[in-house]
């Protein structure tokens, strides 16, 4: 069992918004093996964002158990969760979330700063990751000097710089045109081919079709969990 990257058991999440109790997740269980490439799909309000936050250790489940890379993270405190995010997770966001007025290299090196690496070691690893995503010649460019696709590549390099157990992507192509989206999907496929575990939240069937498995969420429950034939 500990071989799974992600092991979620009967996870619920309930918010209280003023007087109203919102049951965002109503008992979700699944496992994702190492090296899997999974898309999580669902309409807005389905609970897929909440599920993403729980998987990303940004939020704790109300009940249930969540093991990430063999560690039970369901009851950890904020600082311990931060440490887990630092060492085991890499995030890719729809809006890229790069630091403006900061070079691609420094953006990618940012997680390593919190890991306590020296400036020299940070820059060396960041440069290596940027070369892997095809931006070896853009190290000193600022986000404003890069195209949307290039910015997302920088964000992916940043997500990978600490060698995470799981790469979490939240609508990674939401802000990109279709051709650029294809390039990013191709990059994800390459990463998957090298053995990365990738979880991608999307509402776009075309994008989801690049994954090898789709988990469909609706009203806080998993309504379908299907494997896709890879072409």
């Amino acid at each position, binding site marked *: 069992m500990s071989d799974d990257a992600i092991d979620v058991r009967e996870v619920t999440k309930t918010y209280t918004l003023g007087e109203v109790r919102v049951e965002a997740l109503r008992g979700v269980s699944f496992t994702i093996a190492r090296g899997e490439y999974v898309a999580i799909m669902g309409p807005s309000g389905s609970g897929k964002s909440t599920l993403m936050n729980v998987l990303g250790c940004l939020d704790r489940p109300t009940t249930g158990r969540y093991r990430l890379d063999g560690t039970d993270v369901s009851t950890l405190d904020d*600082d311990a969760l*931060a440490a*887990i995010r*630092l060492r085991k997770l890499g*995030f890719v966001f729809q809006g890229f*979330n790069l630091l403006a007025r900061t070079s691609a290299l420094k953006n990618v090196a940012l*997680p390593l*700063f*919190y890991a306590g690496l020296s*400036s020299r070691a940070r820059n060396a690893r960041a440069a290596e990751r940027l070369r892997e995503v095809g931006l070896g010649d853009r190290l000193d460019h600022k986000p404003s000097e890069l195209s949307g696709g290039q910015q997302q590549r920088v964000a992916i390099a940043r997500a990978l710089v600490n060698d995470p157990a799981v790469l979490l992507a939240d609508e990674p192509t939401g802000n990109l045109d279709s051709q650029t989206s294809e390039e990013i999907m191709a990059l994800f496929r390459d990463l998957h081919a090298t053995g990365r575990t990738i979880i991608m939240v999307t509402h776009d069937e075309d994008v989801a079709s690049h994954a090898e498995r789709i988990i469909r969420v609706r009203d806080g429950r998993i309504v379908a969990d299907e494997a896709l034939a890879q072409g």
Partner: protein
Amino acid sequence: MWQYLLEALSVLAANRVRSLLTVLGLVIGVTAVIAIQVLGAGMAGAVNGILGGVSDRTFVVFPNVQQTDFTRAAIRLADLERAKDAVPNVIEAIPAGGQSLRGAWGHVDRRVLIGAGADERFATGSPLRFGRKLNADDIGLQRNVCVLSDVAYDKFHMSGDPTGTSLHIGERRYLIVGVLGKSTTGIIPININADVTIPYTTYERFYTRGRPIIAARFLLDDRTKVAQTEADALAWLREIKGSRVEYQTFDRKTISQAIDGIFAGVTLVVALIGAVSLLVAGIGILNIMLVSVAERTREIGLRKAIGATRTQVLLQFFIEALALSAFGCLVGLVLGVGIGASVNHFAIVKLSGVVAPIPWLRSIVIATGFATVVTLAFGTYPAWRAATLDPIEALRYE
């Protein structure tokens, strides 16, 4: 910690305009306070330079003007002759003050102030322009010699070296043995020296007969016991004049204490201005830091998402505030010292001729104090706000 400082500096450098606006208030506040400090030191230096002209081996005693029996309190020549035996540490007591008399040099005729002078050991610190000051032989032999002040030199329209020529005061002729240079009293219009100083023995012989002595000048052996000797002198005067007489003493320390009192008042006002500017600058920093935290909400969310702990975010923003404050205070320090020293140079030093050292230590302490207080008081809250942001909310922030 070093890494955090570098990170903070790179963030601040990447947002130059915002950073500069943030510290502007602090720069102005620190500049003002330090400039006034440097100016104050210049003023104090100028005053001390002036007081340097007053010998610290003498003090003056004079009867209070408002007392029931002024005649009884008046000091007489006979009293002065007894003083050096009666009061410990007193070498000599001589008439202080002087008389305004007509003097003539060649065919120039002017009214001049004649004063009694002691030998060099008790003379003022005024520089010599020509000749020499009075010496022990002049005093001992009651010589008819005189030393002119720079004012007298001008009054008689002298040019070149007048020593060796004679000055007529009334019927008497005095050999000019020296001329004093300009004393460093430019900024405050007082003249420490009489126009014409003659040996006090000569003065007593010719000018005190039958006249009341307004004040007495005591010449001391040990300059470190001025206060004690003053007390002894007053006790002795009461002993011979009766207990109801009232006197005042006047020495270099009395003057500097009076001036110190004025400076203490000025310093208090400056401290208040400093406190107000500190508050204003601090609120400016608080405001811009809060705006900065709000503006960087997504950045903070991202930093937390990629694994920054609360403490790390707190530390980062706190060090940013600290770096800003330190930078602002450093610039304020340099500007303040620069402005203060320039004003000193062009105004005070030109007038007084006294160059006071810049109070670096005090300035640095003030600037450091400002930086610390501003950071602690106004940088902590924004940093705490940043640290406690919920990463999910922060990432969603538009």
